Each structure stands twice: as structure tokens, then as C-alpha cells.
């Protein structure tokens, strides 16, 4: 196990190195000038001389490889650089955004699980019955509705009609509820479908048929065998979803004024704020690899045969 983890960590370093070089290269080749974006952000144009001086100040006139090497050297020293947009350090921005995104991601994931797990279970056990149709309808609707529509509908319902939440959300628990629910609904739709499908597969396995023939109680089979055997698959789905959620949700964060990393990165892309984008890429690369590693470890603990 330790050997496996060490191997993954070494792989992570290589992945991050390749990833950072590729992203740095893509940004270098892509059209767009951080200096121009910064100076003309309000629609006021500036002279060529002012623009050139700003490019010089931001170090944009240096060769690509020198810029990348400098950036890498600083990152290895723990310095993610200064934002091209406002000259503020990148690391605190990313930490602040990530912290908010983690809260939103975990809350929405939790909500999605408590909706989808019972629904998927019921739907699988009651396959073809009314409850199955309802669960599938929810799954279909949840999957089909775009995030922004769910957000606005929820806002209208809870803020204007029922008036239990304010439109102007803040960093409090109350402010977290609607954005978390907006993210959770489509996620729950997907989870319900996947859990249902996995459980139906398991329920049709020969071991279940055999146990039923041996008159083992259905509840016992469901809890001790079917659910247990399905956990690995479900865990993989959750792991992948966490990775996606950590990238932030620009739409939800913008609508609910949630200062997460998704909005930060989208604003940074618009402003061609390369140091922030590079920091984000490194963090997200690490998160993806680490989450996959954790999922693998748990998966193997649940099913020692996979060692």
C-alpha cells in the first residue's frame, strides 16, 4: 500500500510539471493581453506607450521559457506570484476561493446523497412501480435543468414567494443553503440514476438469486450484500464528482454571490490573469490526483480482492 502511495505521489509531481508547462504554453499562445485587459477594463482605451510600459512592468515582454522557469522556481519556493489584475498575492486569493468552494461542494454533495441514495434504493427495489417512475422522473428533470434555471427558480420560490431566505446571500449557513441545493439537485438526479442502475445489476446477480432460494431475508441481502457490493461503484462516482465540484461552479457562485474558486478563475481567465490561472491549475491537478488516490485506497479497503 505504502509503495502504491509513493508511486502515486511521484506520478503527481510529473503530472503537475507536464500540466503546468502545457497550460503555460497554451496561455502564451492564446490571444489576449493582460496589460491591455487591465488598463482598459472600464472601456477606456490607452496609448501604445502606456500599454507597452505596463507589459514591461508585468514582465510580459520576456521570452516564454524565461517566464516559465521563473514561475516554476517561485512555485517551488512556495510563491505563487502576484496577480496581473491587481498586484495582490495569488496564494491568499486561491486559498480564500478554495475554502468557500470546499464548503459549497461538501454541502451540495451531502444534500445530493441524502436525496439520491434513498431514491435510488427505492427505485431499484420497486423497479417498475410508481415510486420507480417518480424517482426516474426526478432524475430526468434534475439532469435536464441547467444550473442557472434551478438557481433562479429556487431563489424565486424561497426568497420571493415563501420568503425564508434573502436574495442577497452571504457567507452564513442561510446563505449556503440555496447555492448548495442548486448544485445538489442536478447531482442528485445523476446519482439516483446511477445508484438505481448499480443496485438493479447487483439484485440480478446469481448470488442474490441463490440467497433468495436459500430463503435469506430480502432486507439482509440488501444491506449485507447488495449495498456493500455496490459501495465501490458508488464511491467512484462520488470521488469523480468531488473533483468536478472542487473546480467551482461559476454560474452558482455568481448568482448567489458565493466567492468561490470557480468565479475567481473565470474572472482571471477574462482578465488573462496568468498567475492565478496557473495557481488554480496546480491546485486542481493535485486535488484530482489526491481524490483519486483516496478513492482507490477506500475501494481497496472495502474490497481486499482488488489488492
Amino acid at each position, binding site marked *: 500500500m505504502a509503495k502504491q502511495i509513493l508511486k502515486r505521489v511521484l506520478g503527481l509531481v510529473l503530472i503537475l510539471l507536464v500540466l503546468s508547462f502545457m497550460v503555460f504554453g497554451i496561455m502564451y499562445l492564446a490571444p489576449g493581453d493582460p496589460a491591455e485587459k487591465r488598463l482598459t477594463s472600464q472601456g477606456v482605451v490607452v496609448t501604445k506607450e502606456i500599454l507597452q510600459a505596463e507589459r514591461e512592468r508585468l514582465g510580459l515582454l520576456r521570452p516564454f521559457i524565461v517566464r516559465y522557469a521563473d514561475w516554476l522556481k517561485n512555485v517551488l519556493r512556495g510563491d505563487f506570484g502576484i496577480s496581473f489584475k491587481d498586484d495582490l498575492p495569488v496564494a491568499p486569493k486561491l486559498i480564500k476561493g478554495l475554502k468557500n468552494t470546499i464548503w459549497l461542494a461538501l454541502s451540495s454533495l451531502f444534500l445530493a446523497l*441524502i436525496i439520491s441514495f434513498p431514491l435510488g434504493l*427505492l427505485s431499484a427495489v420497486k423497479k417498475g412501480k410508481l415510486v420507480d417512475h417518480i424517482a426516474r422522473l426526478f432524475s430526468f428533470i434534475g439532469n435536464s435543468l441547467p444550473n442557472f434555471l434551478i438557481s433562479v427558480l429556487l431563489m424565486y420560490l424561497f426568497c420571493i414567494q415563501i420568503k425564508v431566505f434573502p436574495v*442577497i446571500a452571504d457567507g452564513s449557513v442561510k446563505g449556503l443553503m440555496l447555492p448548495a441545493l442548486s448544485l445538489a439537485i442536478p447531482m442528485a438526479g445523476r446519482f439516483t440514476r446511477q445508484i438505481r442502475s448499480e443496485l438493479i445489476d447487483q439484485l440480478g446477480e446469481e448470488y442474490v438469486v441463490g440467497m433468495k432460494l436459500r430463503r435469506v431475508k430480502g432486507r439482509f441481502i440488501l444491506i449485507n450484500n447488495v449495498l456493500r457490493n455496490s459501495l465501490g461503484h458508488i464511491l467512484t462516482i462520488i470521488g469523480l464528482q468531488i473533483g468536478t465540484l472542487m473546480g467551482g461552479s461559476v454560474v452558482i457562485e455568481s448568482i448567489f454571490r458565493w466567492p468561490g474558486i470557480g468565479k475567481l478563475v473565470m474572472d482571471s481567465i477574462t482578465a488573462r490573469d496568468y498567475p492565478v490561472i496557473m495557481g488554480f491549475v496546480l491546485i486542481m491537478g493535485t486535488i484530482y490526483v489526491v481524490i483519486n488516490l483516496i478513492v482507490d485506497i477506500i475501494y481497496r479497503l472495502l474490497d481486499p480482492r482488488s489488492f
Partner: protein
Amino acid sequence: MKKKFLAALLAATMTLSMAACGSGAQTQKAETETTTETQATETSENQTADESQSTATGEKILHTAASFAYPSLDVHKEYYGWYTSIYGVSEALFKLDETMSAVPCLAKDAVADGSTWTITLNDGVHFSNGNPLTADMVIKNLQRLATENSRFAYLGDFEMTATDDKTIVIDTKEVYPTLKNDLASPECGMIDLDATTDFDNSPVCTGPFVVTEFVPEGDVTVAKNENYWGGDVKLDGAVFYYMQEDDPKLLAMQSGEIDCYNSVSSAALEVYNQSPDLYDVVSIPGARLQFYILNENTLDDAVREAINLTVDKDKIAEYLSGTVSAAVGPFSPSAAYGKVTVPAVDTAKAKEILEADGYTLGADGIYEKDGQKLSISIAYYAARSLDTLAILIQEQLKAIGIDSTLRVEEDPDATYIANADFDLALYCMIADKSGDPLYFIDSTLADGSYYNVGGFKSAECQSMIEELRTETDTAKRADLANKIVQIAIDDNAFGYVGLFNNTTVLRKGVSGFAEYVPFDFYGVDAETDING
């Protein structure tokens, strides 16, 4: 039995979720209390308190939404001064009024004599801490602005002296007729440089409001400056919520959480216009211009003229549902330098011109000449409704027999503006940043200017631009500007399509939120009020 089990399972998960949700939430609250977001939390939580307090004590607190938020309140840096001006915290020596004229504010007068400007400060101007604004402090501010903001670095070349406490003499070395207008820019706001210890979070300025709470890139709360030099301030305070999206702003207006905001979307406008008993909507042409450049190097005179006779700005403005006003020239028609004329839309004449130039209408309804279809490339970028504009122009041109291909770029400056590889290029910029026409004319019409990429060249025009650079008489400047722009219009070098409207929605009883000023950088002031 199975049913009972499933019901119990469902109930258990729900109970667990509630419990866990609560604890997670508490954890989060505890966490955020140590961060900046706490301030946001407190601000919003305070809002409820503010509202109840306003009811209890009769305090007038205005709640509004701001589409942008910045990490600092340093008036001189970047465009942060635009926002300190909107918040009513900072003021410049002059301000721009409804007619786009620079009128007195902290200074009462600015008189030019050749390259020497004499600026006299208003009587009794002082900062919120009571310290008077002196001529020395003005000079220090302008010098700081020159070092902190590259757009104002030229101020560093001027020689400034204080002849007494209220008089500043600025030697611009060469005749510089727009200094008064430049000094009306919000970046020229005055800070008490001696008393301010934290420029990013609490600058000491002269405005009718003082910052009480500032969340970097978040909400801002201001309170009445009890010591305001300009007299009584009607509001007790204001809260600016950072809200980028249109729908939440509309819902916040409907729920009563905000009292007014500007940059109203066309969809929201429809809603507000249906409730005139609840809301006032004020819409005036602003300073942000949508225009196109016609490439004289690739399009002959007849085609350019036909295009300009075909593009129907009124229909485009109508399609954009009140967010844009059809433009005549680049400047607001209410400005003295916005008096130009354009021929009326006349598609029959456009066709005649093309036919007189040798074009014949093909079987597919597209003109052709020498076996070549008349097809132009339209370059645009997807912002400021330019994507919609491109499609509408394409449709209008096709209706008279001019085919076109659309080409979208993410960064116009680095692509089609830099390379001039277009027939018609759409662009949007602020045409009037400080109540004077030189900036736009210099950027788009002068020889070799960055946005004069379509081959427009006129010796007469250039000569008048040189004259405009040194002319100090406002009326003569307006006259020159009108003549210069008219030459460009007559040459069919450009098409000025629309001026973005400054559209403000106010709850009934709210007034004075700069709703009649065409510039983006004004908001609350001493006259902003809530009645009823």
C-alpha cells in the same frame, strides 16, 4: 416490513442530513468569522439590523447593487476611484454634469493662460476628519496619482506650485486644453495623504459619505459624513452589494432588499415598466459607444456608402430593447460636441449607388461585379451586445444584396484591430471619458492612432485635430470636434451605431442616484434621498 424498513431508512437519512447540515453550517460560520467573508456575512446580517433600525429610528439607509467590486479603495490606483466616487466617498476638483460639462466641485474655477492653468479651490472644503483641503495637498495628490496610475503619469511632467492655500498654478509646458476635464476624472479624487494610514481600506476623503465597512471584492457600507463641507447629507448611509448577475438584482428589487441600481438589463426593464406605480426607470444615452470601422483599403466608396445607408440604427436599438440609444455621432447629442448629421436610412438609394458603381443583382439576390459576389467580412467580439449587432447588420445588409461572413474573435485588439484584416469591424469603447471630444477623436481619427485601422486619412481632418489639441475655448473645441467627426461620417469611414443607455431603476421615493448623468462613475451624493 420492507415498507417500514425503507421508511425508517428514509427518515434516518433525512434526520441525519438536518443534523449534519446544521453542524456543518455552524462549523462554517465559525470558520468564516476569522476571514474577510465574515465581514460580508456581518454586512448582510447587519442589513436586516439596519432595516429594522431604519424603521425604528427613521434612519435613511440606501441599499443598492454594484456590478463590479475591487480589492482596494485607493482612489488613485487603477479604476478604484470610479467606485469610491460611486460610493460618495471621494470627490475630484471638478465633476461632470448632465450636459457633459466639467463644473465646480472641490475647485471653483480653472483658468488657462497659454500653458499655465490657475485653479482656485472652493471655500471651506475639508476632509471628513475636519482637515482643510489645501493647495499643497492637491499638488501632493496629483503627484501621487502620477506615480500610482500609468494613465495619469503625464501629470508628473507638469510643474505645480501653490501660490496660496487655495490657488494652484500648473505649468503644463505645452498648451493642454483638457486639464480641467482631466481633473474631473474620479481618479483625481482628493485624499488626506497626511491622515490616511490605510489607503486600501479607509482613505480619508472629502465626499458626503465615509466608509464604515469594506470587504475587498465584496460589499461596501458607507455612513453619512457628519462633517461634510458641502452641507447637509440627506441619507444616513448606504450599502453597496456586489451583484454581477441581472436576475438576482431583479429579484432583490422585488423582495425589497435593494432600493435602486443601474445597468438594468432589457429583460428586467420589461418587468419594471409593467409596474410604474412601484418603480421609476430613468434611461439616458451614456458615454459607451458601439461603432464599426469600414475598411477603406478593402471596400470601395460605393460599398461603404451603401452599407451606411442600409444599417438601421433605430431598428437595432429597438431590438436591443432600451439598453441602447441609436447614435448619430460618437458623442451624446446633448453635448455641444455631439452635433453632427448622418443621412437617413435609404436602402433604395444604397442599391442605386451599388448599381451605378457597376454591381448587378445576381439570381441569388446578392450583388456581383466582374463575376465576384459582393461579400464582406464582419469582425466582432462577443461582448457589449456586439454579437447581436453583427447578426442584425448581416441581416440588414443581406436584405439589400450584400452578403457577409461573421468572424468572432475573443481579443479584438490583438487580432482584427492589430491586423486590419476585416471589411467591417465592430468595437465598443467609452467615447467620452471626461466631457471632452479629444480623447475619442485622438484614438480613432488621428493619423496613426490605434483604432484608425481602416485607412481613414484626411489632411483637413488631421489639421483640425492638431488645432483641437491646443484650442482652449470650449465653444471652438466643440465646433472643431463636430467638423472633424462630420468629415469621418461623410467619408463613410465609420458607422456610429448606438450609445449604451445609463439605465437606472429606483424604488418609488428614491432619487438622486446619478440617474441623469451619462457617466458610469457617479452614484450616491449629498442629494440622494429616500422618501416614503
